[in-house]
C-alpha cells in the first residue's frame, strides 16, 4: 500500500516483479559457469553406501543399469549414469544397459558413445557391456523380467540374438544380477524397481533420481535400497567418492561437481530472497498494525 502517492521501498519489495527474481536467478546460474566455479561435496552416507556396494563386489559382478529418464533430466541423471558406468568398468564389472522409458535408450546410447567407446575402448561389447535397449510395459516389464529376461530381450538393441553374447549366459531372471541400478525421474522409475524387483526378489537395488523425487525414496533406505543419489548433489557426491578411490578419473569425472557451482549460488540467491521476503512481511505487518 502506498504511503500517500509515494511508493516506498517496502511497497517495491512487496510487489516485486517476478521478472527481477528470474533475472537474478539467471545471473546466479550463468556467472558461476563463466568463471568455472566448482565446489567439493563430500559424500553423504546414503551415497557412500551405494559407492561401497559397487566397490565391494568382486570383479565380474553383473550390474543391470536401467535408464528411466528423458532429456529434461539429463543434467541430473546423466552424470549419475556416467559415474556409475565408469566405476563399474574400472572395477571390471559386467554392465547391462536397458531402459523402461523410450527416451532412456537414447541416453544409454549417448553414454556408450561418450564414455564407453571413448574412455574404455578395451571393453568388449557382449563380454563387458551390452545394450539391451527399451521395452514397453513399465512395471509389467519388470514383472516379466523377474521370471524370464530372455523372453522379453530376445535380441540386443542392434538386433543381434541375445544368446550370442557370452555375458548373457546364466542370465535367466532378474535374480541372476548382482545389483540393479535404476536411474529415474518419474514413473516408471526407481520406486518401481524396488517394489517389483528388489523387495519381492531380494535383489539389491540402488540408483539415482532427481532431487525432487529423492525424498520419496528415502524411506526405502537402507532396507530395500542399498543407496541412492539424490539429484545433481548426489551425483557430485558419488563423483567425489569415485575420484578419491580412483584419482586417475579426477579430470574426466567432474561434470556434476562443476555443475554444482551454479546450484550453490542459486541456493544462496533463493535464501536471500526468502530473507528479504520475510523482512518485507514483518515490516508490512507492523505497518498494518500501526494503521
Amino acid at each position, binding site marked *: 500500500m502506498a504511503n500517500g502517492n509515494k511508493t516506498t521501498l517496502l511497497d517495491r519489495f512487496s510487489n516485486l516483479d517476478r521478472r527481477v527474481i528470474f533475472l537474478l536467478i539467471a545471473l546466479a546460474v550463468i556467472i558461476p559457469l563463466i568463471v568455472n566455479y566448482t565446489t567439493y561435496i563430500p559424500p553423504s552416507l546414503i551415497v557412500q553406501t551405494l559407492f561401497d556396494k559397487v566397490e565391494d563386489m568382486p570383479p565380474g559382478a553383473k550390474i543391470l543399469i536401467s535408464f528411466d529418464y528423458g532429456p529434461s533430466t539429463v543434467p541430473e541423471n546423466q552424470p549419475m549414469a556416467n559415474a556409475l558406468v565408469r566405476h563399474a568398468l574400472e572395477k571390471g564389472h559386467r554392465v547391462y544397459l536397458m531402459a523402461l522409458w523410450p527416451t532412456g535408450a537414447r541416453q544409454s546410447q549417448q553414454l556408450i558413445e561418450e564414455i564407453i567407446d571413448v574412455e574404455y575402448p578395451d571393453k568388449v561389447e557382449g563380454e563387458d557391456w551390452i545394450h539391451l535397449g527399451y521395452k514397453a510395459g513399465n512395471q509389467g516389464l519388470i514383472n516379466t523380467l523377474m521370471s524370464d529376461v530372455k523372453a522379453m530381450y530376445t535380441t540386443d538393441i542392434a538386433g543381434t540374438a541375445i544368446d550370442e553374447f557370452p555375458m548373457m549366459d546364466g542370465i535367466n*531372471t532378474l535374480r541372476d544380477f548382482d545389483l540393479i541400478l535404476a536411474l529415474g525421474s*518419474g514413473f516408471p522409475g526407481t520406486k518401481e524397481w524396488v517394489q517389483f524387483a528388489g523387495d519381492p526378489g531380494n535383489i539389491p537395488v540402488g540408483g539415482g533420481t532427481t532431487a*525432487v523425487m529423492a525424498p520419496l525414496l528415502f524411506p526405502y533406505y537402507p532396507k530395500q535400497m542399498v543407496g541412492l543419489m539424490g539429484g545433481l548433489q548426489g551425483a557430485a557426491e558419488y563423483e567425489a567418492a569415485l575420484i578419491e578411490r580412483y584419482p586417475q578419473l579426477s579430470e574426466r569425472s567432474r561434470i556434476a561437481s562443476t555443475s554444482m557451482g551454479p546450484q550453490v549460488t542459486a541456493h544462496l540467491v533463493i535464501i536471500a530472497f526468502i530473507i528479504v521476503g520475510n523482512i518485507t512481511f514483518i515490516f508490512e505487518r507492523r505497518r498494518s498494525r500501526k494503521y
Partner: protein
Amino acid sequence: MRNRTVITVLIAATFFLPKALWCQPPDSSVTEQVFVSPPSGLNAFDTPSDHAQSLSLEWELSPDDGGGADNVTWYRILRSESAEGEFTVIDEVPAGETEYTDRGITEGTSYYYGIVAVAPGGMSEMVGAGPAVAVQNWFSRDRANLMVIAIILVFAITYYIYLSTTGRELYIRKIAGLEAVNEAVGRATEMGRPILFVPGIQDMDNVQTVAGVAILGHIAQRTATYETQLEVPVSRSITMSVGRETVKQAYLEAGRPDLYNDDMVHYITDEQFGYVAAVDGIMVREKPAACFYLGAFFAESLILAETGNSIGAIQVAGTAMPTQLPFFVAACDYTLIGEELFAASAYLTEDKKMKGSLKGQDAGKAVAMLFVLLGVGLGTLAVITGSGAVQSAYDFILSFFSVN
C-alpha cells in the same frame, strides 16, 4: 515286486557308498591330500509359494566349517537328472551358507542333488538327496500376512459401507479444498472467464486419474448449470475418452446437453513437458478464472501452479504424489493432500455408500496407527529391558508387515 525292491535297494545304497566307488564331481582331478568332513542332512524340496521356478536345498554345515579343522571355503552344489547319472556342478556357495535355490530347472523333472565341502587341497565326499520335483503351488505362503491385512481393510470398508446404508449418519470433517470447488466455479461464472481442469498426466490405470475424473463430473455439472466455459486438456487418449463421457453425462444430467461440445476435452500430447507447455499457453491466452489440478503430477506441477498464479486464477490442487504436494501447497490457494483427493468424489456427491467407504478408510488408518504405536513401543521396550519375549514380539510385528 522283487525287481522294484532290488532297484530301491540299489538306489538307496548308492547314496551311502564312498565317493571312490560312486559319483565323483566332474573336476575331481584335484589331489585329495586333506581330509574334509562332509556336510550333512542335505534336503532337496520344491520351493514353496512359487510357480515351479526353483528347487531349494538345505543342509547342515560341515564340522570343519567354522569349527574342527576350520578349513572349508566353499560348498559345491551338484545336480543330476538321475541317481546313477553324471552329476554336474551347478554352483558354488561360500562357507557358512546352509541354503541354496536352484532356478535353472524344468517343471516336472526329477532332480538329484549332491553337495561337497571344499577346502584348499581337498574336498569332502559327496552327500546326496533327491529326487525333488518343482511343481506349481496354489497358495503363496509368503503373502499370507498381506492377505490378512487385505481382509482386515476390506472388512472395515465394507462394514462401514453397510452401516451407511442402514441410515446411520456418518461424520466427515470439512475439507477446505473441496468446499472451495463451488466457490471457484462461482467466481469464474461472475468474471465471465473459463475454468481449466487438468486431470493429471497419467492414464486411467492410475487411481489418481480416476479420482480426478470423478471430480471433473461434479465440476462439469456446475459449469453446465451456470453456463460457464470448461476446458479440459488431457495428456492421455483413454483419459480423453473417459473425460468426454463424464462431462457429456454431467451436462445431460444438468439439463444442458446443448452446451456440451466434444472439444471441451481435448488431447494434447503424452509427452510431459510438451503437455505442460501447451497448458501454460492455454492459461496465458485464455486466462481462466479457476484452475483445477486434480490427479497424478510430476515435475510440471510447479510450472502449472506458478503460471496459474501469474494470471491471478484461483487454484485448487490435489494429488497423491508426496513430492509434488509441497509445490502445490506453496503455489495454490487450496490443496487436497493425498487421501483427500480420493475422498473428493464421496464428499462432493454425498453418496452414502461412498461416505461409508471413507469411514472404513479411516478405520484402516486407525489400525495402522495402532500397529505403529505397538511396534514402536515394543521396539523401545526391547532395547530398554533386553527381554527376549518382548524382542520376539517386536520381531513378529516386523515380520508380519514384511513382504519377504
